[in-house]
């Protein structure tokens, strides 16, 4: 709404020419001069009348101080010459006055000149100028002062323009630019020097000069209003401001009002703060929502990326492992190939060198053909003449000859396989050397062997090493077992003595002692076996024997150890096997004593031996607690121990079944268990058919 505040005074009676009259009598040309006139010749009323005729009102500005009437007169003269008679366009002057007055801490000037603009008095003393609307004035007051980059841009635009023919119309961008420039000059900011140059460029010389004169008066007016603190703007303006709260607010709470007093650094800071505030305000709710969405998205993406990165890292690790495995495989392959090459090489070297002799024995004709190396092993020059068995026997150590004959005989008649270690005396130097010889029947006529082939090589060095090794193990076992032997024997003798004297308590105690000694002996034995197994050196001595007989012997051995159990073995048939009798006995003792250990007193332990397609299968059945299926395989592992409950552990060190399994493995057989919880277990071992041995 455009509020026109009319003024009913006689302003139309006054014209420009009249205004010149009171200022100076001497100056009649159209050029105004700064009037330092002698107002003393006039009366006070006349002075006020002059003012009123010019600007339509008599402002407080010129009324005070009362006791120095010459001062207002001088001010009036300055006002007339620099402001009222200044030939710059009246509306430009008045709007600029109002705009510049925003930066004055005293509100008198701005309020008073705002009044002039809207018709409460004459704008720049020009009664013909139509009053501006409140809205136009408010727009002017809301205009922020351009600074920094913004101002630099404006300056550049102005500099690029040709000089102005006329000062700009109100509410134009050009007016805004000129006002901004002028304000910087007026406030003497950092940009003042630039702005002064710009003004000099866009304005012609006289306009530029009049602008500076005008600024000088505005400055004077501001200072004066600051110094004269009780200046009043008049009821009319006060009433207007009471009605227009917003206008009043613009006037009295103008941020720009104090800024001219603040140094430029502060100005800059304020501007940046203002920009920040603006930016902050611009970030409204929607923007926050967007930002939150963005943050959520970023967080989600980050999470997904991290997961993906982890996945990739995992994949990478897998690839690395796979590559490593592949490399290992390749390495293994290479090693295997190298091994094969090495073996081939070794084989060739062995055959080519003096270490490996080969023999081929035609039994029907009793003709033996040797390779060159076989001759060398015996210390003979190689020749191609055929030899026979007796010729060979003359080099064999006499102490070994009978055995050799026996073993060979057995191979020919029974097993088809021959192996023997024996000593020979070399023909060339009489030196004794250890040989090992392997042979196999390769041809038969009906059931009768007709041809054997084999190899023989020198193992003297190995024998020496074996001797050293045996010595060492012998020493260790000797040291442990010899005292045990003494203790055991003394215990037995003491037992006998106690029995003779009918000293039953002593007999009982010594029986217990004897059992403990047996345990100790067994433990030492197991440890020795385990050491041997881990070294891959558990030795076996194969022989033919009756398994049924062996089982009977072992059952008889064990029967006294637990009179509460009933050991049952019903097999009567002879079961001839070719195995290590001692070792198989060891397996039997282990399985039967385990059965005793893990089954309730008074229960049966049933041993059985049968011939199957695969070989001879021996089983030991107990009626104990049984073995959970999950540990069926584990019990054959080294140092595995069964537990009867959470806390109890059965005695033993967990080597028995491990050793038994190793013994069966070495026989080409196997050992396994079938078990039902709380019903019992059956342990089996299989000795494969003789041909498999």
């Amino acid at each position, binding site marked *: 709404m455009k509020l026109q505040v009319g003024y009913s005074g006689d302003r139309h009676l006054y014209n420009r020419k009249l205004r010149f009259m009171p200022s100076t009598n001497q100056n009649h040309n159209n050029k105004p001069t700064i009037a330092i006139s002698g107002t003393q010749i006039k009366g006070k009323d006349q002075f006020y009348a002059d003012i009123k005729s010019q600007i339509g009102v008599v402002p407080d500005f010129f009324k005070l101080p009362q006791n120095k009437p010459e001062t207002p007169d001088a001010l009036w003269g300055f006002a007339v010459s620099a402001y009222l008679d200044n030939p710059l366009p009246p509306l430009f002057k008045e709007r600029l006055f109002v705009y510049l007055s925003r930066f004055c801490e005293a509100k008198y000037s701005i309020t008073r000149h705002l009044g002039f603009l809207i018709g409460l008095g004459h704008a720049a003393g020009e009664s013909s100028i139509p009053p501006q609307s409140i809205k136009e004035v408010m727009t002017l007051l809301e205009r922020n002062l351009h600074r920094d980059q913004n101002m630099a841009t404006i300056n550049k635009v102005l500099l690029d323009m040709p000089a102005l023919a006329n000062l700009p119309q109100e509410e134009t961008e050009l007016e805004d630019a000129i006002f901004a420039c002028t304000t910087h000059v007026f406030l003497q900011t950092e940009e003042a020097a630039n702005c002064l140059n710009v003004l000099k460029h866009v304005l012609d010389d006289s306009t530029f000069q009049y602008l500076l004169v005008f600024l000088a008066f505005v400055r004077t007016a501001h200072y004066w209003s600051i110094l004269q603190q009780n200046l009043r703007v008049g009821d009319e303006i006060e009433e207007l401001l009471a009605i227009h709260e917003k206008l009043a607010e613009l006037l009295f709470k103008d941020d720009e009002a104090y800024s001219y007093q603040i140094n430029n650094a502060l100005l800059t800071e304020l501007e940046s703060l203002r920009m920040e505030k603006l930016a902050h305000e611009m970030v409204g709710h929607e923007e926050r929502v967007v930002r939150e969405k963005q943050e959520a998205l970023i967080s989600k993406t980050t999470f997904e990326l991290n997961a993906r990165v982890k996945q990739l890292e995992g994949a990478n690790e897998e690839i690395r492992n796979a590559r490593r495995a592949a490399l290992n495989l390749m390495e293994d392959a290479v090693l295997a190939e190298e091994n094969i090459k090495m073996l081939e090489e070794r084989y060739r070297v062995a055959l080519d060198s003096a270490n490996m002799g080969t023999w081929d024995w035609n039994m029907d004709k009793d003709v033996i053909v040797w390779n060159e190396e076989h001759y060398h092993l015996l210390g003979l020059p190689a020749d191609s003449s055929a030899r026979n068995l007796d010729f060979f026997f003359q080099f064999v150590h*006499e102490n070994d000859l009978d055995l050799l004959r026996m073993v060979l005989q057995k191979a020919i008649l029974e097993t088809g396989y021959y192996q023997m270690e024996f000593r020979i005396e070399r023909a060339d130097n009489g030196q004794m050397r250890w040989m090992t010889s392997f042979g196999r029947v390769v041809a038969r006529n009906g059931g009768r062997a007709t041809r054997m082939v084999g190899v023989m090589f020198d193992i003297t060095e190995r024998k020496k090493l074996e001797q050293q090794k045996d010595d060492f193990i012998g020493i260790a076992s000797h040291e*442990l077992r010899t005292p045990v032997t003494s203790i055991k024997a003394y215990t037995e003798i003491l037992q006998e003595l106690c029995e003779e004297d009918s000293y039953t308590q002593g007999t009982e105690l010594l029986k217990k002692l004897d059992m403990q000694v047996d345990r100790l002996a067994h433990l030492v034995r197991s440890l020795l076996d385990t050491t041997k197994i881990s070294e891959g050196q*558990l030795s076996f001595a194969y022989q033919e024997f009756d398994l049924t007989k062996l089982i009977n012997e072992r059952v008889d051995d064990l029967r006294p150890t637990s009179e509460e159990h009933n050991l049952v073995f019903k097999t009567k048939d002879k079961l001839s096997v070719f195995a290590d009798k001692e070792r198989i006995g060891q397996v039997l003792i282990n399985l039967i004593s385990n059965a005793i250990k893990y089954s309730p007193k008074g229960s049966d332990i049933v041993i059985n031996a049968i011939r199957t397609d695969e070989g001879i299968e021996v089983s030991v059945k107990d009626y104990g607690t049984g073995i959970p299926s999950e540990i069926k395989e584990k019990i054959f592992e080294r140092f595995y121990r069964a537990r009867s409950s959470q806390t109890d552990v059965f005695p033993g060190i967990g080597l028995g079944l491990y050793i038994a399994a190793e013994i069966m493995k070495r026989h080409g057989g196997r050992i396994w268990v079938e078990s039902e919880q709380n019903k019992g277990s059956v342990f089996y071992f299989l000795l494969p058919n003789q041909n498999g041995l």
Partner: protein
Amino acid sequence: MKHIIVAEDDPGIRDIFKIILERAGYEVTSYSNGETLMENNFTAPHIFILDKQLPGIDGLEVCRFLKSQESTKNIPVIVVSASPYISGLSSNAGADDFIEKPFKGKFLIELIEKHTKKKDAAQ
């Protein structure tokens, strides 16, 4: 009274053999090593008991020696060892039996009886 020659380096075990065998009614002659045994002009016993691990000449070597001599080759030899792995080796050396330490006195006596009876039967 049947006569047994024992070669055993450990005095404790030597004592044990003596006690067990004498209690069973045998006459015992003990040697602490193989050399002394082989060098001595001993009376042929009914049975030899040789510890495998003797100082100097090994028990198995002594066994081979005895089995190679006309005067002793038919006398049973039982090899005794604390090592369980020489059962095969001892039979390779010509021993008639092998007994592992520690052993039951009863078992030893049974073994001796078995071999001496066998020899008696052969003769």
